[in-house]
């Protein structure tokens, strides 16, 4: 009877309740053999997967990766644009200040010594290309490349986005300098734009291509040597003038730009972080 009272208390019922009492009476009269060990085991085996499934399903509903997956599906922005946004966050203040200071100082000195500001821009732009290269290898220098490679974008995509960000920044910087030198949008302005864009792209292309083939130091040395040679031997003119003397400067610049873009494209499409870096460790 005590047990009955306990059960009824658990059910929050009164024992005086005739229905409940009747149920107990009927149950007391009903005798059943306890199940065998085998039958119990069989029941456990049958029920266990159901409980596990329910438990797992319950947990999976709360998983962060599922929320990410569902949000990601609705994100239609192309990968390269997403990466450009990401790589922009990597631009350090130091790099920005250094490049601005470099160009400002150059233009100021050119004005002070009544020298040709446009020549300075043409000479300085390959140096910006070299800085771009050092920025391109920043991840490798700080050993972040391995983590970046384990993320869902390919190393080539990351490298392309990074170079696009820094190159765009350099182009904007030089364009601002061009506007300072030549404020009117005439033929001189566009010629000047071509004059610095050509060595910037060509030097960066050569440097990146060489660095991928023979290492980052070789790339920098090669591009640096070319830059110095260009300043000292041909007074800032392109070496292509010697190879193709009959062509005008505009054509030479266009060829340089195409060559630079070609080298950049070839280098970036063959960018394989794993074979280049990780095997040597």
């Amino acid at each position, binding site marked *: 009877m005590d047990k009955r009272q306990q059960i009824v208390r658990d059910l929050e019922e009164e024992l005086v309740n005739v229905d409940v009492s009747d149920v107990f009476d009927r149950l007391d009269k009903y005798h059943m053999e306890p199940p065998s060990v085998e039958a119990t085991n069989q029941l456990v085996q049958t029920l266990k997967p159901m409980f596990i499934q329910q438990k797992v399903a319950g947990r999976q509903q709360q998983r962060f990766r599922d929320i990410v997956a569902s949000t990601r599906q609705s994100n239609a922005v192309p990968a390269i644009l*997403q990466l450009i946004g990401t790589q922009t966050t990597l631009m350090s203040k130091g790099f920005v200040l250094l490049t601005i200071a470099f160009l400002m100082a150059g233009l100021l000195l050119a004005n002070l010594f009544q020298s040709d500001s446009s020549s300075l821009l043409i000479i300085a732009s390959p140096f910006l290309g070299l800085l771009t290269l050092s920025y391109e290898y920043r991840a490798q220098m700080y050993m972040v490349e391995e983590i970046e490679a384990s993320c*869902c*974008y390919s190393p080539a995509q990351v490298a392309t986005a990074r170079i696009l960000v820094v190159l765009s920044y350099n182009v904007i910087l030089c364009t601002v300098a061009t506007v300072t030198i030549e404020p009117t949008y005439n033929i001189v302005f566009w010629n000047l734009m071509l004059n610095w864009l050509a060595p910037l792209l060509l030097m960066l292309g050569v440097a990146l291509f060489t660095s991928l083939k023979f290492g980052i130091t070789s790339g920098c040395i090669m591009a640096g040597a070319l830059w110095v040679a260009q300043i000292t031997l041909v007074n800032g003119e392109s070496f292509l003038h010697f190879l193709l003397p009959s062509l005008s400067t505009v054509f030479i610049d266009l060829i340089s730009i195409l060559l630079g873009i070609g080298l950049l494209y070839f280098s970036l499409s063959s960018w394989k*972080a794993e074979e280049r870096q*990780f095997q040597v*460790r």
Partner: protein
Amino acid sequence: MLTLEMENIVKKYKADSSVLSHVSATMRPGFFVLLGPNGAGKTTLLRIMAGILRPSSGTILFNGQEISQNYKQYKQNIGYLPQEFGFYPDMTGRNFLHYIARLKGIPASLYPARVEEIAQCIGVSTFLDRKIGGWSVGLRRRLGIVQALLADPDVLLLDEPLIGLDPEEKLLLENYFSQLATERIIICSSNILADFITFTDGVLLLVNGKLCFNGRIEELTDVMDGKVWLAEVPAKLGQVIASKWLVSEMYTVENISQIRIVSDSMPDIAGVRPTQPGVKDAYTYIVRRNDSP
């Protein structure tokens, strides 16, 4: 069910030398420890599993699908901590984690809260707004673990995650990993036997690029039944024995050396007796047996 299978993985950097030689294993949710001496190929194997190195031959299947068919999709399901964890020193911890979260494809509406949540679990949240360059080695290691966990991956690959951590930090992380392992595959490499051994679901022992053992920790010690011997000898004799026999442990107290010898047959040393095998005995035995390239 979540599965990660390696089938006959071979990795060669030069044509004549294999870093990994026909490694095959299947893993289901649980905590696995990848053991092996230095240069055994643990890091290479983890890099292949992380999809950042391609095997020379062999395949990796994730939930029955070859990962090479869609590396991007596979990488969305993994978290990886390299042995040498790099970072941009001029960035704050928070900015760095935001950068990695974006690279992992986590939407901008979700990652700030996620970074905070995981950083709190791993115990780095109070340092998040300081530049990483000024963090201690242990904190940086924990930052590496946070970035690996950001996308809530199904497979967590951690290369020596406990390096540079103090015992308290190790305990915190071991407990956290054991909780995560109930519904994820966690593979940690280590060359320190004591790490993770108490709660591991499986041990993968790699020696000279070959998978020499793949099973539960109990099975590892079962292999050693009747092969471990204990001898107590004068300290001078201890050195002689160590040069002659394969010794898994030796310590000397008051000129008496207690030596654990691993041998298929009973060593001819006076007073030697069989003893209960341990993980260290098994490790020493298997590594030595497979040590020659």
